[in-house]
């Protein structure tokens, strides 16, 4: 177990900065996800943690000790790779035993540890098989087994379940989370899948173009994104953004758009003023906090036309046309609107987000 600190770390490939001034902490024993699209620098960060890439600037601390100069083998981390990286010519047992063998653990102890790890991962029947005889999920469990037999300070998981099919992914998500809770070993988990990050982690670090966008608990990231990019990246279906003007009328401040004029609360107004009282904002509303109806509601609402409806089994996703723009509303399959029908969208004011037009930062 170890507390991990990444302090002002930079990674250059030639003159290209892949990671820019990154500072993240992972408290002892917790599960941190690094979330971002491909090319955001999350894998470079993980490889710097493992010691597979040099750190161009800054430092990484394990329990307060600088590990920049340590070789991978001396860092006491275990890594699970996206493509499993099993040794094809070795059996499952030999694969899992390898890290212990490299550390000179005696044979009896190796057997004991591998067998107990295999039990935990339900691999006991496969110990004599070779990787090519296993399914993707089994291979990934072997790779995880190889990581846990050693009882390292830190687990590094690099998109370990990205190659599995959707059903197995959901299963492995809960398995990995359970495993981490059981072993209480610090884990850093790299993923591009916001659902994985939100559902598994204690903390999420969102990265974009080499820079840390936000660090916080999954709830904070989801409910209080610091900028429009994080807001749009986290959440599925993605947050709706509508550009509006900020106008004052009848001692209330309104967000005005061709299709609506919605008054702000006093608290929201104060935050907007604190942020520099902008003339225009991007209003962000998650599809799941919107309600749609075909009858005009008495409350403040957005008017639009049904563009297209998508049935998702238990839910229905309605795309609503507001002039040139579209917003998506998650509603129940009972919604009966047909394409082109006028409709009304109501939104809870507390769930609104407002972002700057210029730099995307959040006012609230």
């Amino acid at each position, binding site marked *: 177990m170890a507390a991990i600190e990444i302090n002002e770390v930079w990674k250059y490939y030639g003159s290209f900065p892949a990671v820019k001034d990154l500072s993240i902490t992972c408290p002892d024993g917790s599960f941190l996800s690094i979330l971002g699209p491909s090319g955001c620098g999350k894998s470079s960060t993980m490889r710097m943690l*493992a*010691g*597979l890439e040099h750190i161009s600037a800054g430092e990484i601390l394990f329990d307060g000790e600088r590990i920049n100069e340590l*070789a*991978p*083998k001396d*860092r006491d*981390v*275990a*890594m699970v*790779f*996206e*493509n*499993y*990286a*099993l*040794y*094809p*010519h070795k059996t499952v047992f030999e694969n899992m035993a*390898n*890290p212990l063998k*490299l*550390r000179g653990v005696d044979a009896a102890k190796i057997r004991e540890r591998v067998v107990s790890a295999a039990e935990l991962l339900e691999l006991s029947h496969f110990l004599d098989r070779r990787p090519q005889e296993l399914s993707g999920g089994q291979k990934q469990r072997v790779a995880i087994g*190889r990581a846990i037999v*050693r009882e390292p300070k830190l687990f*590094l998981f690099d998109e370990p379940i990205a190659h599995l099919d959707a059903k197995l992914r959901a299963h492995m998500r809960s398995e990995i989370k359970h495993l981490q809770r059981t072993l209480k070993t610090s884990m850093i988990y790299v993923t591009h899948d916001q659902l994985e990050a939100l559902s598994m982690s204690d903390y999420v670090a969102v990265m974009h173009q080499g820079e840390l966008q936000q660090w916080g608990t999954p709830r904070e990231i989801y409910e209080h994104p610091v900028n429009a990019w994080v807001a749009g990246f986290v959440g599925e279906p993605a947050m709706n953004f509508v550009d509006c003007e900020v106008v004052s009328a009848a001692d209330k401040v309104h967000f005005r758009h061709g299709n609506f004029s919605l008054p702000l609360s006093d608290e929201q107004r104060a935050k907007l003023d604190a942020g520099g009282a902008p003339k225009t904002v991007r209003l962000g509303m998650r599809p799941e906090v919107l309600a749609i109806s075909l009858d005009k509601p008495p409350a403040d609402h957005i008017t639009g036309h049904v563009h297209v409806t998508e049935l998702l089994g238990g839910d229905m996703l309605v795309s609503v046309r507001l002039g040139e723009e579209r917003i998506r509303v998650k509603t129940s399959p009972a919604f009966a609107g047909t394409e082109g029908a006028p409709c009304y969208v109501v939104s809870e004011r507390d769930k609104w987000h407002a972002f700057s037009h210029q730099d995307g930062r959040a006012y609230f």
Partner: protein
Amino acid sequence: MASRDIVAYETPWTKVFHVFSAIFVAAYLVWTLLPIFIMFVSSFKDLLAAFQLPAIGDWSGVGVFFDFTPTLKHYQSLFTDNNFKVYMLNSLTAAAGSAVVSVVLGAMAAYSLSRIDFRGKNDLFFGIISTRMAPVVAVMVPLYSIFRSLDLVGTLTGLILAYTTFNLPFAIWMLKGFFDNVPYAIEEAQMVDGATRFQAFRSILPLVAPGIGAFVVLCILFAWNDFLFAAIIGSGGAKTLPVATRELVQPQNIQWGSIMAAGVVTAAPMMLLGLVIRRYMVAGLTMGAVKE
């Protein structure tokens, strides 16, 4: 290896083409196999019988060619009068020695070139390959003079070094292709698991085994069949089979029977080797080229 049915439709043209290709293949087989066949049969003949050939155009007289009493005396004389046991051992040592040295150095160099980026890497790689572009004869004189001043002429060490000079660039070039196809993740996993770089390198060797095997065979073939190096660098103390065979041709006495027997002794081991490993050989040579 996936093979696929080829859909073919008969047309007059394809029929003509098939007949033509059959004739071509038959002629080609006669052309390549007949000398070997004659060598094999003649090695069991008396000198007199060896020259009993039918007249040109006399196809009915072909029987004369097979009309002889087999004798093993040429083989016996090779090993009793002519020291062929020593020459065979020399050939074997030179071939195996250079294969081992080339594989060990070649694998390490190929791994470095495959994995590590450094300035001038491409130039270096081209430099290594380019040593194979010059004909052997072009470097023979300087090589000989270097070897002579190092007292390596006529020694097996010298011969092994000479073969290695030419096999090593080939090993590097061939094995680099194999290492390029091994995913980095496997050795990275090793290093994170506690291996040094060298242990990680060793751990992926089984994955390039087909390449190493194919290279060893080609290397042995080159050294075993070589005449030029053996005649010049190995002359005297390190006589190999091809050179020893050549020495059976003496101005006043060309020992045809022994030459044929020596030819068989030289060719047979490599042919057997070829038969045994041909399956792996194809797999090895193509695996580096086609990414799976």
